[in-house]
């Protein structure tokens, strides 16, 4: 219980620091914030438009007041309005968030489903054919940036083989089958870079745990090889795998931005890229904040899961 509480407190503290940093960034950057935001097109903005923006964003008030308002708004779930169309940012995010989550979770699932068994097999047949094959494939997978994977998948399956559409989205309620077809390629693209990470971690930790003395004790008890493997090797290797998945979420979330762009997947990232192009700072701020919250929350889950898997963490 204590452990859960400690983790939760540290997660809240991180979120607080992140939101403060997001607020401060606009003010740290040299130059007038309103001017910076308006100078996207390369032309100097007019004095009036700068003034207008300043009062619209409340930039004319003292910094601490702005901060209090900002934090207050965040706590109420208000992330401000977009520069582009004046629409509330939070609403748009709520609409798009589940699509991004779906993509990430599918990719993570694929990575675990493919990475764990292949890692196990490679470790058990260390130095053998499968080990060589999987290890080579994984080091190649690690080297392909997600957007290249995505683009090449489109080239192969949509342009040359004409098997699947190049990108797009249909909601699950409208057409479940088509929805999954659209999901397939983007999720696979992310999985291509995530699976090798899982594979390597599983392989290394299985190899490490196979050498442990408790494995020898388990064999000395007279336990069958399969039980030894499942209960005393694989079970123990779950903790490092969970940890490594958590650590790579950052890269994963970054990868989603590119993948959603490549496949026209209307998740958070499409909105983000557009906002960055338009230099719509409130929108960027809002999306980044939400993704960071997501990131911190998933890491919290990872920590808790880790505690569940390893009693030593729970009791210390």
């Amino acid at each position, binding site marked *: 219980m204590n452990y859960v509480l400690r983790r939760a407190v540290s997660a809240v503290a*991180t979120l607080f*620091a992140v939101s403060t940093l*997001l607020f401060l*960034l606009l003010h740290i*950057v040299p130059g007038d914030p309103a001017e910076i935001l308006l100078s*996207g097109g390369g032309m100097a903005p007019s004095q009036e438009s700068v003034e207008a923006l300043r009062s619209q964003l409340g930039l004319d008030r003292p910094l601490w007041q702005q901060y209090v308002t900002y934090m207050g708004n965040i706590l109420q779930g208000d992330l401000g309005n977009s520069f582009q169309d004046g629409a509330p940012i939070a609403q748009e995010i709520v609409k798009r968030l589940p699509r991004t989550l779906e993509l990430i979770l599918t990719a993570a699932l694929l990575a675990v489903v493919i990475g764990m068994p292949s890692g196990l097999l490679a470790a058990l047949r*260390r*130095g053998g054919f499968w080990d060589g094959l999987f290890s*080579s494939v994984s*080091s190649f997978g690690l*080297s*392909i*940036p997600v*957007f*290249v994977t995505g*683009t*090449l998948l489109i080239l192969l399956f949509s*342009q040359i083989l004409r098997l699947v559409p190049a990108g797009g989205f249909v909601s699950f309620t409208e057409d479940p089958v088509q929805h999954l077809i659209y999901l397939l390629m983007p999720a696979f693209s992310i999985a291509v870079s995530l699976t090798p990470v899982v594979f*390597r971690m599983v*392989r*290394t930790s299985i190899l490490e745990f196979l050498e442990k*003395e*408790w494995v*020898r*004790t*388990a*064999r*000395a*008890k*007279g*336990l*069958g*090889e399969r*039980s030894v493997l499942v*209960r005393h090797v694989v*079970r*123990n290797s779950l903790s490092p795998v969970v940890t490594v998945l958590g650590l790579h979420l*950052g*890269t*994963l*979330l*970054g*990868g989603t*931005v*590119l993948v959603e*762009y490549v496949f026209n997947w209307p998740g958070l990232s499409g909105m*983000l*890229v557009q*906002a*960055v*192009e338009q230099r719509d*700072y409130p929108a*960027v701020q809002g999306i*980044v904040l939400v*993704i*960071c919250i997501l*990131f911190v929350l998933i890491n919290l889950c990872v920590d808790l899961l880790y505690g569940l898997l*390893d*009693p030593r963490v729970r*009791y210390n």
Partner: protein
Amino acid sequence: MLRHFTLIFAVAFLLLIGGMAVLAPLLPLHDPVQMDVMSRLGKPSLTYLLGNDEYGRDIFSRIIYGAQASLAVSLSAAVLAAIGGVALGLLGGYFQGWIENITMRPLDVILSFPPMLLALLAVTLLGPGTGTLTVILAILFIPAYARVTYGEVLSVRNLEYVEAARALGHRSGRILLRTVLPNVAGPILVQFSLVVASCIVLESGLSFLGLGVVPPDSSWGLMIRGARPYMHMEPLGLLWPCLALVFTVFSINRLCDFLRDMFDPKASVAAFTLPGMLAGQRLSRTAHAMSRKAEPDSLLQIRDLTTEISTPRGPIRAIDGVTLQVRRGEAVALVGESGSGKSMTGLSVMKLLPRRIGRIASGEIWYSRGEGENARAIDLAPVPASHFRAYRGRDMGMVFQEPMACLNPVYTIGYQLVEAITVHNNVSKAKAEEMALAELKRVGIPDPERRLREYPHQLSGGMRQRVAIAIALCGQPNLLIADEPTTALDVTVQAQILELLEDIRRTSNIGLIFITHNLGVVAEIADRVVVMYCGQVVEEGSVEEIFYSPRHPYTRGLLASVPKPEDLNSGEKRLASIPGTVPSPLALPPGCRFAPRCSYSTEACSVAVPELEVVTESQAARCIRWKEI
């Protein structure tokens, strides 16, 4: 073989692309921004080696200039980040306290942003461009270096050579740069190559989104972005930059793996090559063990057992022709120093030799089952390890040295005991738990009900060793092999464990093989003693014979090395010691293996390996001069 090939490819590719990027202005290349409208999306030709892009620009030239941009941004960002990160990590890790807090804590905030997002955020504020990109990437990767350096410094700073440098009176700055830094340089170098690869990927990703390198400058990401809409017309234009990008990242990653293997063999991802096949004939493997009528009283008879372990530098004989016997209820001590093969003997009997690299090469292990007239002896040596679990636990149990490591940390004590019980007995869970409780009581654990529900880390070392003994005894074995069971324990706890083992041996009449380097423990517990040196038995006898009339010079030397009250009374204050060190198992001396360290050795000693000569009915020594000594 494939490994070498990919490494050579990686180095060659990096040299080629890096060299061309550096020399680009000097090479006879087309201007990367010059448009040749006539050859838009042109096929490869002699003028345009890789064809033309959507504006008719030369793809080959754009790839080289793209490499220039990519590598310049990535390398400078990686170097800048390295300087900042390593400095922070060194300071934070070495000094700790408040310095640690101000150097390391702020980095956690950077780390709580996914890197791509932080880059996008900065681009929003600063606008795209190569300079911005470099600064952003540098800041992004400072935590990566700082963390690695910090972790390495933490593990190095408490090593005794750093403490020794402090004890000598060296300055902190000097210790950091001359003692700590060289020892953490390996992982930092690995990190450097990882960061360069990540920078290239991030740079190309941002450029792909149109938020990195600004056109008309060239970048692989931009090229992919530009060629994408035309991929149905000219897929090659898309493939070239993809290939350049993938091969570059692959090559750097490959180099990184190589560096990691060199500096940190533990984290090695490289394929493992099996050491050379073991020479000699394999034993014929039969699932049905050979059996014969047992000799009365005998429990275990090992004859001429040889076990081979293959090492990267060639196969070694960890034990070489060992013969020994254990009777029911008898305690036999296997004594020797490191490398003597005493532990390997125990593991050979249990068929727990290191996976895939250890095997029994020859010899017999006769184990007797049954009572009196019906007793049968079975030769366990040819039984394959896969069939051997029928014997483990039920016929012979084993206890290991490290009580900290021999219990699985993620299961309760109760689970691990019940597991051992249900392997051998077909009982309900409730019954098994009842039996587990009885086992814990038997090994003298106070408050056993509570202990059943606790995890190994909640128990002290002595308690854990008691649990390990309980687990080994679950299947009511006739033979218990204890491999240095008290070495990791304190003297007062060691005495308790010895008493427990003694007690169990008496009440259950089981045979005990006690493996140890501690002669004091041997004197306490053993009925008979087998002294091993370099994989061979050099002397065996009853405990009285070994301690009061040792015949082999090695046994005598060992005994003399232990401080005794007489050493003080002589006034000289000297211990008799054995000169030299134990020879490497790869370069054993010819003849008697102890001869080079033996003060009695003659030329004859080096001619042939001496036989184990009978001294008395129960004592034997492997020395040709035992009579004279």
